């Protein structure tokens, strides 16, 4: 039966958590993909892995150490950029550092194999109430800040150089955006795991961009693709006993293929026409 898993408590938690993550990841994803920063989610997810391993080693709740880790990782990427290190190299350095810390911490910790696997591959069907509250708090924070600085993010994404000339505090906003991405990674990795977290950020956004719509509609479409992917992925996972993280990501890829085909095969949608001219008077 369709959405039968919602009759179970764990299914409801999975759906709510999944929808929070879908909206958060996909809306940030459009900005990241357009700024060619798709790999930043990958880099920060491995930094988060280092944080999780540190949490398991020290006995602190792993998502808390992951949050601290990604904030520090975001600052690291931003600082390397200030030192004129190329953005892809800065991300790769943080990626390697996070992974190295994670491996060392795991080697020092006993009996953590199951816990580590749950973070690597995601356990959306096993998320508890604490995870859900944390996901909700981080999701609301990320979306709230995204909306608060909406026009600034749009400006920086369209043309960071012009935004700087206009007087926008581009460097500070970029740092905030990187930290938001890190927090989103922490939220998302509980669902699909560290290894596939960037998929939820990159693929729905890339699918929406294929459709060649104005900016705002592109962000809404990315959210739509991600939400549908979570619902369909959970359904498939429940019906055929598949890994939920992998199912969700494969559904997003199907949406991407459909969007790419639609953009090439369907006739172009006519644009809104001009609603009249304005008689410009120069007041100088």
């Amino acid at each position, binding site marked *: 039966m369709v959405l039968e898993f919602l009759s179970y408590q764990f299914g409801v938690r999975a759906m709510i958590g999944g929808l929070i993550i879908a909206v958060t990841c996909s809306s940030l994803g459009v900005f990241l993909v357009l700024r060619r920063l798709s790999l930043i989610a990958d880099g920060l997810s491995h930094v988060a892995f280092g944080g999780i391993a540190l949490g398991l080693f020290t006995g602190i709740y792993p998502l808390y150490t992951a949050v601290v880790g990604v904030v520090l990782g975001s600052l690291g990427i931003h600082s390397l950029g200030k030192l004129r290190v190329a953005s892809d190299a800065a991300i790769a350095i943080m990626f390697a550092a996070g992974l190295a810390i994670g491996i060392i911490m795991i080697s020092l910790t006993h009996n953590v194999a199951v816990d580590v696997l749950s973070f690597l591959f995601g356990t959306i069907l096993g998320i508890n109430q604490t995870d859900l509250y944390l996901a909700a708090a981080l999701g609301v924070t990320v979306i709230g800040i995204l909306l608060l600085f909406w*026009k600034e993010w749009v400006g920086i994404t369209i*043309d960071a*150089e012009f935004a700087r000339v*206009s007087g926008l505090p581009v460097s500070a906003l970029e740092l905030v955006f990187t930290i938001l991405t890190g927090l989103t990674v922490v939220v998302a990795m509980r669902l699909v795991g560290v290894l596939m977290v960037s998929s939820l950020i990159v693929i729905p956004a890339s699918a929406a961009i294929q459709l*060649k719509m*104005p900016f705002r509609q592109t962000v809404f479409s990315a959210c739509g693709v991600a939400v549908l992917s979570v619902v369909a992925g959970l359904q498939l996972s429940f019906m055929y006993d598949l890994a939920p993280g992998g199912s969700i990501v494969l559904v997003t890829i199907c949406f991407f293929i459909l969007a790419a085909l639609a953009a090439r095969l369907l006739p172009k949608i006519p644009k809104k026409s*001009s609603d009249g001219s304005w008689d410009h008077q120069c*007041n100088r």
Partner: protein
Amino acid sequence: MPVILPGSEKVCLTLNNVWFAYGANPVLEDVSLSICQEEIVGIAGPNGSGKSTLMKIMVGLLKPDKGTVSFACHIDECEGKSPCRPCIGYVPQNPVIRQEQFPVTAREIVEMGTFGQIGLFRRMNSDSREAVDAAIAEAGLDHVQYELFSDLSGGQQQRTLIARALVGRPHIIALDEPTNGIDAQSKQEFYTLVSHLNKVHRITVLMILHDLPDLAAHVERVIFLQRKVIYDGPSASLNAEGLWNLMITAGKIT
């Protein structure tokens, strides 16, 4: 609205002994110049002569290693501000939106010109929307404002970027190689628009130009660079031979 004080010959932008280097490579050496209000100035020079760097210093994107940049807009509300950011409209050479299938319309790009003036946390209001409408009409983009930027012709894209720079009602507009990649008709329309902005709206125009004939035909004053200023004078006194001599002089400096 800003009101230009009387005196059209007033200096609005001054560079004093500006030096700049990318690492160990010197790009600008001891550049000093003044731009007067309502001038149309062409900046020329061979590749790597420091033209774009000079413009980025002028608009505040780069800080000089040595020397000073000062503005005096002679606009009542702007006096005392340095850098006078709202007074400069910038049209970069190759914004990333030109190169990719960006999901952004011409109007969305023009709207971006209001963001700096609106300020953080605030949304566009009716005044800023009117300013966007006016800039779109000025640039002749009414009929394509809801089209995706990537679907526009090179000339329409260029006018969109100019409209974005005009939204803030600038007193100086700085254009980095504005005629690159556009056809002859669009180029003519572009120069007509520039002339209109200068004559009617009294906007000072700074342009980096590669085409030597365009320099003679469309600007009043030429600044020829090769790390330092090797010519600064009226374009009228520069014929084709004079421009080629400048290129040869520049080559010797390299």
